[in-house]
């Protein structure tokens, strides 16, 4: 582990000013914000992250869940995953989010992990996490051994010839379907980023994972007002019953009137290089009868552009089944 300075600012402006000195907010950052530390500290122990300064943001009063004026929800960046998943309003109006969080990690990790940190959760690709290996995400230009190596759990959507790392977050999949908005305060003021714009595709810059710049502090996330009558479900498929990242997951929201789908939001997890909202699936569902044929067509549409590697072809079919079944179960809920 690299020797670092640990700072516990109490004032967001000071935190932002300190972080703004970092040469990047992406891989290789020399200043890092720390929420629960469940990703960052792990990666520091592995020497994947080697910040000189770590800013603990838990004293910035970003830990509240509040109603917004428009009837939505404002979730502070340091709200713990457990608190968010068990919040009454989340369980009532944003069930898919609660389910997604509770399907992730373990109770102990959820008690530490924060919302802001989960937005920035890093891939579990074994090559990324081992500094003895090449990795374009960790060391740009060094190569991607995953493409010819062990890639069973890696991405089939949004990949590039430089990187096929999966985004592992469950929470983000639900947030993508819920069309959350991310609120960022930086040295040049505050701004909002729609969820779909927040994470970047790897392309030829896999070390750049989000739109964040040095000094950018995620202060909170807002959820739009709940969709009345929305049927929601998060389904996660994995090898074992618990404590494992998704091989494929689906967050779905359906509104059905007189047997027809009037509103559909779909996102996939475990298969994309970023939390994978599927407008193709949503289009395939909109206005159609809520039946198995429609759901299958939506799943076909969602995976149409999937690209498999040597070991993960099965994930295409698994993701199809995951989405089809999630839609079916949601429609029946």
């Amino acid at each position: 582990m690299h020797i670092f300075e640990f700072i516990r600012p109490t004032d967001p402006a000071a935190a932002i000013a300190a972080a703004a000195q970092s040469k990047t907010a992406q891989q290789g950052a020399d200043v890092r914000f720390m929420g629960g530390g469940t990703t960052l500290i792990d990666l520091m122990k592995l020497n994947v992250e080697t910040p000189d300064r770590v800013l603990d943001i838990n004293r910035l009063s970003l830990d509240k869940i509040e109603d917004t004026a428009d009837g939505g929800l404002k979730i502070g960046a340091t709200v713990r995953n457990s608190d968010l998943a068990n919040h009454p309003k989340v369980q009532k109006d944003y069930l898919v989010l609660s389910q997604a969080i509770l399907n992730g990690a373990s109770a102990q990790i959820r008690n530490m992990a924060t919302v802001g940190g989960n937005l920035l959760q890093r891939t579990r690709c074994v090559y990324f996490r081992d500094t003895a290996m090449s990795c374009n995400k960790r060391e740009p230009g060094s190569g991607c051994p995953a493409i010819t190596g062990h890639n069973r759990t890696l991405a089939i959507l949004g990949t590039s010839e430089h990187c096929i790392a999966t985004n592992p977050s469950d929470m983000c999949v639900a947030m993508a379907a819920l069309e959350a908005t991310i609120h960022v305060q930086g040295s040049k003021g505050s701004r909002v980023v729609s969820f779909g714009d927040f994470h970047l595709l790897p392309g030829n810059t896999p070390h750049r994972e989000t739109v964040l710049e040095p000094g950018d502090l995620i202060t909170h996330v807002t959820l739009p007002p709940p969709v009345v009558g929305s049927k929601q479900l998060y389904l996660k498929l994995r090898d074992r019953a618990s404590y494992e990242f998704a091989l494929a997951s689906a967050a779905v929201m359906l509104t059905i009137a007189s047997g027809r789908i009037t509103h559909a939001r779909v996102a996939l997890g475990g298969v994309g290089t970023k939390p994978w909202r599927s407008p193709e699936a949503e289009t395939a569902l909109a206005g159609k009868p809520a039946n198995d044929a429609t759901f299958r067509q939506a799943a076909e549409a969602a995976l149409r552009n999937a690209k498999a590697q040597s070991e993960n072809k099965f994930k295409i079919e698994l993701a199809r089944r995951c989405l089809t079944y999630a839609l079916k179960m949601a429609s029946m809920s």
Partner: protein
Amino acid sequence: MTETSTTSPIGRDTPRVDGPRKVTGLAQYTSDFLFPGMLYGVPVEATIANGKLLALDTVAAEKMPGVRAVFHRANIGRIFRSTPAPGFDRVCEERRPPFEDDVIQYYGQYIALAVADTFEAAKAAADAVRATYAKEKSNVEARLEAGHDPDVVFTTYGPVPREQSKRGDPEGAFASAPVKLDETYVTPAETHNPLELHATTAIWDGTMLTLYDSTQGVVNARSVLAQMFGLPKENVRVISKFLGSGFGGKLYPWTHVPLAAAAARQLGKPVKLVVSRKMMFQSVGHRARTQQRMRLGATREGKLVSLMHDYVYHMSMLGDYHEDCGEATPFHYSVPNLRASFGRARRNIGATADMRGPGAVPGLYATESAMNELADNLKMDPVQLRLLNEPRLDESNGLLFSSRHYVECLNVGAEKFGWAKRNPAIGSMKRDGLTLGWGMAGAAWIAGRFEAAANVQLRDDGTVRVACATQDIGTGTYTILAQLASEKTGVPLDNIEVELGDSALPDGPISGGSLATSSVIPAVFKAADQAIASLLIIAVTTPGSPFLGHKPDDLALEGGRIFVKAEGPGKGVPFGDLLRRANARLVTGSGSAEMTAFAPNPKFSKHSFGCHFVEVTWQAEIARLRVSRVVTVMDAGRILNPLTGRNQIQGAVVMGIGMALFEETIYDPQNGAPINSNLADYMVTVNADAPPIDVTFLDYPDKEINELGARGIGEIGLAGIAAAITDAVHHATGVRVRELPVRIENLLV
């Protein structure tokens, strides 16, 4: 003997006597011990799997704060080889001492050791060491082809013929058999992954070396380390008080142990070395990958006429370890024509080693899977096929079995499981919208004893101390020894002190082969008898004793009281009273018993038997497979402690679910690294995967093993379970998976 007495602790559900110490944190595991001035060592691992170490740059590391030294080939000092010996003494799977040469044989081989004031400083220094290699192409190929080995190969435990068992004309009988099966079964490399990491702390006092080591064999570790440092055995002491298990991976010392000792010698300070989880996948052993061709021939009625079990396993470039997949093959079923043979494939990997049920567990996966597939081909119930081929004796050597109740295991298991209700049609059984799969398989494991010695003291405060240099690896050995001492003396468990895990105690067996319990019984009983004999002499000779004038033979000890046999125990005197009257703090007795396992010219064929019946649920829509119910029946001799015994079997079944569905060590094709070297990517069963497991012990004493008739139960629960699960998977899905683990992708058809 009071084994039928209502007060006997034998055969009674007995909570672990060390339980309170464990749950309150008083139990000290190896890395919990701290010593004044102790330093911390962190090894540097090679990042190639084949080639030469050309240069090490340690300059930056040596300058880092708190760093005391960076050791490597040039400055570690002499470490000698531990040479092979017959039997179970001086065993280690990687005989090349660390840093002996510059040849890299596997990824993760130690090339240097950073030692510092804190673990963190040592880790940072280890990370700062830079190595230059001449890298050669490494071979970690998963497909196995036998190398060019002689007909008899040298293995860890001695020479073994590659055609390990043969009778009749297996090829000819197979060729003419009306019903045949010819399939190959593959099991992957598996990593032991006990929760407690390997750890060693070495302390020198002149030429005396003390090692606190997480080991399943303090006596063997003492012998190995004495050789490695050129010391008399009595100069080395190895202590291992509690283990967070080992699963065979901690049976024998690995290279980190002499490294810690050598660093401590060079620096004149205690050095602690804890192996990281990642290193646990590299340099402390693993279960070999196996590829097993099974050929079974049978009559149309299902009588076996030929069985050929020809297998290949992978092994390291350095090791001798033999993965004996054919261990149970020659005796398990009646078949006139049989061959079990093996070949070996060398790979650039760390050493292979014993892992829970070594050999037999992968072997029985293949043989029992083949039996299930043969039953399928015969359109016969798999239980019936086994009943039809039950042998009268061990057909490999003509010996009678000391105690075999396999048929009863099968019948009891079938009854408890409700097997009669099985509809053999694929996917035909449903419950709550899920497809059910039912499968079964048999199990077997060796039985016998290792050499063991023990000491028993009866003390003037009415307590008993029993001591043996075996270990409790979490299975309940402390409790077993307390039960044995209580059985002999009548002293309640609370008043019995058990000392284990210290090579200074009377030599005890490794905690391996499921043989520790059976081995210590005669030793402890003899020691207790000797202590009691001493007590009775005191009883008849001590002035003022109520037993003056009696002969020792007139007296007995029961319930902690000495009494005249003719008068019965009612008028007895507590032995502590007598010792105080004699001004004796204690009497002591020693006992030992010889090894009977693996001994030449046995009178009986000694094995444990068992079977598993498994239910899986299958939801094809989302390819979700879960094990939902297991019924296990074991014929493992007399069970001394059914509570911890059931726990052993249940734990093994849970591990078996991992073997069937999750566990696999994957080697990176380019650099040969075990690439999933952590507990997120190397999947083991979690609680949510563990179904209700109904364990039944038949509890027939096997008096050929020891006076209580107890065999061992640590490993047999893992034998056969994977074959039962894959059979259930086939019943539910129609897919025969012959390469473990069963993955979702195998079933997405």
